[in-house]
């Protein structure tokens, strides 16, 4: 189960979306999310859905990978849909029991909200599948550059370094947690049954070794970084330079077009 977490798992390809400058990608993703929220009626939302679908197709990441991320969020999606089912107003009453009524308006609203969340997940997955974690981190660091001028220079760098290291060690720690879990199970630990208190207690034999090993890893890593002349980012250069290119302009134009249509549809309908 733990191994299904693919957050931060880059999917190698050379699509248009992959080639887009990560900084541009992040800004556009934020814009896309805003537009999805702005899409106030079914027409504009369906247009957003069509645009997101286009992005997914162009990204050349197998659709299966996107669905896998969706699976993780499925409970939230279902929950939202059900809640909204009873919240919607107007339309004909289809079903009524106890204090709850389901109307056609409710079904409409439930579908609308679920689609909106699904689109958000697709957009953010598209970003993480097409951008290496390091590019993402670098882009965030670059985008936060203005903060450097108000005296937060080392804070920006530290944040970026922390993100890089976190991304690097997440898979390692997941693997380690699994190993420790198996080792304690082999010693008869019962992780599956019992009440809440018992289950939390059962985690201690896993969390303590994990904590100790993380501390050990952290001190090893600090030493290794020192040996590689790490100096808190002072005077550091980057191998990969980010250049905006024609691709970025096209992608931006596409997003602007889509955005104006959303706004237009909202106003017209």
């Amino acid at each position: 189960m733990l191994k299904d977490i693919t957050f931060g798992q880059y999917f190698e390809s050379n699509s248009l979306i992959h080639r887009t400058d990560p900084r541009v990608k992040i800004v556009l993703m934020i814009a896309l999310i805003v537009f999805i929220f702005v899409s106030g009626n079914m027409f504009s939302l369906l247009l957003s859905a069509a645009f997101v679908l286009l992005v997914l197709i162009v990204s050349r990441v197998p659709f299966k990978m996107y669905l896998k991320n969706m699976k993780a969020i499925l409970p939230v999606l279902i929950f939202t849909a059900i809640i909204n089912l009873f919240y919607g107003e107007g339309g004909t009453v289809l079903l009524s029991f106890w204090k709850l009524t389901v109307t056609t308006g409710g079904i409409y609203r439930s579908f609308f909200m679920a689609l909106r969340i699904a689109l958000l997940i697709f957009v953010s997955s598209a970003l993480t599948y097409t951008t290496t974690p390091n590019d993402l981190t670098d882009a965030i660091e670059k985008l936060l550059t203005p903060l450097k001028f108000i005296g937060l220079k080392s804070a920006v760098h530290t944040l970026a370094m922390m993100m890089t290291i976190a991304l690097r060690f997440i898979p390692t720690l997941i693997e380690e947690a699994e190993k420790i879990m198996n080792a304690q199970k082999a010693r008869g630990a019962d992780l599956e049954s019992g009440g809440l208190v018992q289950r939390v207690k059962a985690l201690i034999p896993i969390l303590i070794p994990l904590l100790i090993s993380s501390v050990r890893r952290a001190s090893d890593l600090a030493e290794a970084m020192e040996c590689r002349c790490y100096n808190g980012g002072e005077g550091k250069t980057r191998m990969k330079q980010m250049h905006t290119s024609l691709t970025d302009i096209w992608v931006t134009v596409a997003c602007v077009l889509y955005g104006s249509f959303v706004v237009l549809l909202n106003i017209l309908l």
Partner: protein
Amino acid sequence: MDNLIEVKNVTYEYTDEETVHTAVKNLSLNIKKGSFTVILGHNGSGKSTLAKMLNGLNKPTLGDILVDGINTKDEANELEVRRKVGMVFQNPDNQLVASIVEEDVAFGPENLGLEPSVIRQRVDEALKAVDMYEFRKSTPHRLSGGQKQRIAIAGIIAMQPLCLVLDEPTAMLDPKGRAEIVSTLIKLNHEKGITVILITHYMEEAEKADRVVVMNDGEIISDGAPSEIFKNVEQLKAVGLDVPQTTELLYNLQKNGFSVSTNVISIKEAACEIASALHSEEK
């Protein structure tokens, strides 16, 4: 040949719960430029402490260490010393910073503030030198231990150090990974002229070195060519070290009255040694 590293009467002490321990005792050692030295010793023999002093990570309590003429004690030279003497540690997982191979290798040169194009060139070169160029876009956690450790070596090589110090780089690897690391180091030593100091407790790895230094209790107890060192099977065993099985065999034959010498390691040489002993018996 010149000395790249000079260790002069160095003592290292550390305090643990108010008791003072001496990890390295008045030790002197010179490392020649371009040499391949293996330091052997069991856990706690002081070999790791010594290693960390060679690039200034630990500072000697007494005595001095000169790297290419620079004293490691001088704070102002810290970065210079680290760039000249690169370190590789035991656990490959805990040395890699970035989640893409080439970006990890770039970490050192980036810290040195080099031009992007220069970094690119050094990263490519370093990855080729350890035969990992084709994996440059991979993520480290999908690689084998041996491959990860080679990435760690590339990350150091990219800083173009004069010397590579490796603290038990093979301890956590399988035999295949161990062989990969040893052949990578030999290649770097021969082709790039990088001085190599390999710390290990695997005797087989000492076979290909120019020089073997055996440490025990913070002191050097023997120092010489591999064949010289392996002769003293009893001394090695006494300090908790193993000998290669060929040496073990020859040693046992010697004890049983065969006239064989124990200063050979390879299988072929060992067989020849035994064959000639059998022939001389015949006569």
